[in-house]
């Protein structure tokens, strides 16, 4: 089960998956003497949900921040739709980013803006010349997707944790990305709300046919969402497989995550 090369999805996943949308090859990233990623490899296919599992500080968030270009790796390739992220110019990177959504762990909603303004912001930045009527329609559609149309003129501070997560998800989806990166989407939520968010992520993934990388510690979330689970351990892709495959693994390092 342990792997060190580029991982392939299981046969069951291949049926509904197309070409690889993200290819990570020999990725290295360190902070001073702390080597976080060492020769990490991964492929993510079209419409596939990959959950990256690992201990705190294992480098899971570093991995997705490298994919979106917030962090620059020391070495290695990160191909997103064939574009090598570390080598792109800022303008090229911005273009690729329009195809990638990123849901932050703490939501990262702009707290000085209303929910409407939060959702309008990416639209106004990317689709210049969009009429107000069209913007309104897209904003309301995004809010309908997460069931929070009534929050339009509210400020983020007026909403609960679960509602904020839904709004952040709506903002992530508003540009209709083809890939979504989730950084611990259920952290800090009560179990009931966390399950609602899991279901919402799955529903929206099916609706928009997106590919996802989900960082999570929450095993319920992993079980619900994952088409494939990747175990990030000691800076490498230690194991990969479906939830059931990893759950029944005899490897001690893998077993500790499922106990």
């Amino acid at each position, binding site marked *: 089960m342990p792997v060190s090369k580029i991982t392939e999805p299981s046969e069951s996943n291949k049926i509904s998956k197309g070409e690889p949308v993200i290819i990570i090859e020999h990725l290295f990233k360190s902070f001073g003497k702390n080597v976080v990623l060492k020769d990490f490899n991964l492929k993510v296919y079209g419409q596939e949900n990959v959950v990256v599992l690992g201990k705190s500080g294992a480098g899971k968030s570093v991995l997705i921040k490298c994919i979106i270009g917030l962090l620059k790796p020391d070495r290695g390739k990160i191909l997103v739709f064939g574009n090598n992220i570390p080598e792109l110019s*800022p303008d090229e990177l911005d273009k690729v980013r329009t195809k990638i959504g990123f849901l932050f762990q703490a939501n990262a909603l702009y707290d000085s803006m209303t929910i409407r303004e939060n959702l309008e912001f990416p639209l106004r930045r990317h689709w210049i010349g969009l009429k107000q009527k069209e913007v309104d329609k897209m904003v309301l559609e995004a809010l309908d997707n997460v069931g929070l149309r009534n929050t339009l003129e509210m400020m983020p501070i007026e909403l609960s944790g679960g509602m904020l997560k839904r709004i952040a998800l709506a903002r992530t989806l508003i540009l209709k990305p083809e890939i979504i990166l989730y950084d611990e989407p259920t952290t800090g939520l009560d179990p009931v709300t966390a399950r609602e968010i899991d279901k919402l992520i799955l529903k929206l993934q099916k609706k928009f046919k997106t590919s996802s990388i989900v960082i999570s510690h929450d095993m319920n979330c992993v079980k619900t969402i994952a088409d494939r689970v990747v175990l990030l351990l000691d800076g490498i892709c230690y194991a990969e497989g479906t939830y059931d495959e990893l759950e029944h693994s005899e490897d001690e390092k893998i077993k500790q995550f499922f106990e």
Partner: protein
Amino acid sequence: MALIQDIRDFFDETGSLTKFAGNFFTNGLKPRYEVKEVLAQSYSIGYKSLPLIGLTNFIMGLVLTMQLRPSLVKYGVESQLPVMVGIAIVREIGPVIAALIFAGKIGSSIGAELGSMKVTEQIDAMEVSGTNPYKYLVATRVLATTLMLPILTILGDGISLIGAYIGVNINSVTSLHLFFIQVFHSLTFSDLIPAIIKTFFFGFAVGMVGCYKGFNSVKGTRGVGISANSAVVLSSVLIFVIDLLVVQFTNLLGLN
């Protein structure tokens, strides 16, 4: 060893700030121009600072006049009070007081706002949504502070002179018309121009330091407080350093 480390940290910080400021000219001024955001920031930074700057400059004009009077009376040149106060306010006190108040109010506010955005990943969110945060957050605020402080200084100077007029009238009677004729007859362009030009540099320094500290905020909410505080301290020191350099430079040009 601690001293060596402090010196090294100082040069690291100076280099980092210089690089951050240099980015304003190499990156921040290129299209796409954020005109709407510059106007919004100018309104927020300029209009909202006016009451505080006006009040402090008014008091400064009043107090300065009351403090100068006894010395001038002693030498029998009390009639020169409007001239002396006018020159002091326009050349030095008006710009520096306005800049220091501006640093306290706006520098800290920018440092705290951007610091808070940094620690809550709002700046990262902006970047991943394809918006250059330096251009959207930094360039707009620095432009607004650079353009607004000279305007605030001119208005502050005017308010300060009204304070001075009231100060003059506490112990004697001078008409407003006569007071301002005396003040403006004593002022030349070499008094006004360097005084106004240096406020552009003051404004740039306040905006840039506030943004730099906010952008480099770490350690959560405590870091936000540190950013706001150090933005005020550093920009206040820079105001005096810039003032010193401008005075030396204008001396060299024979403008003083």
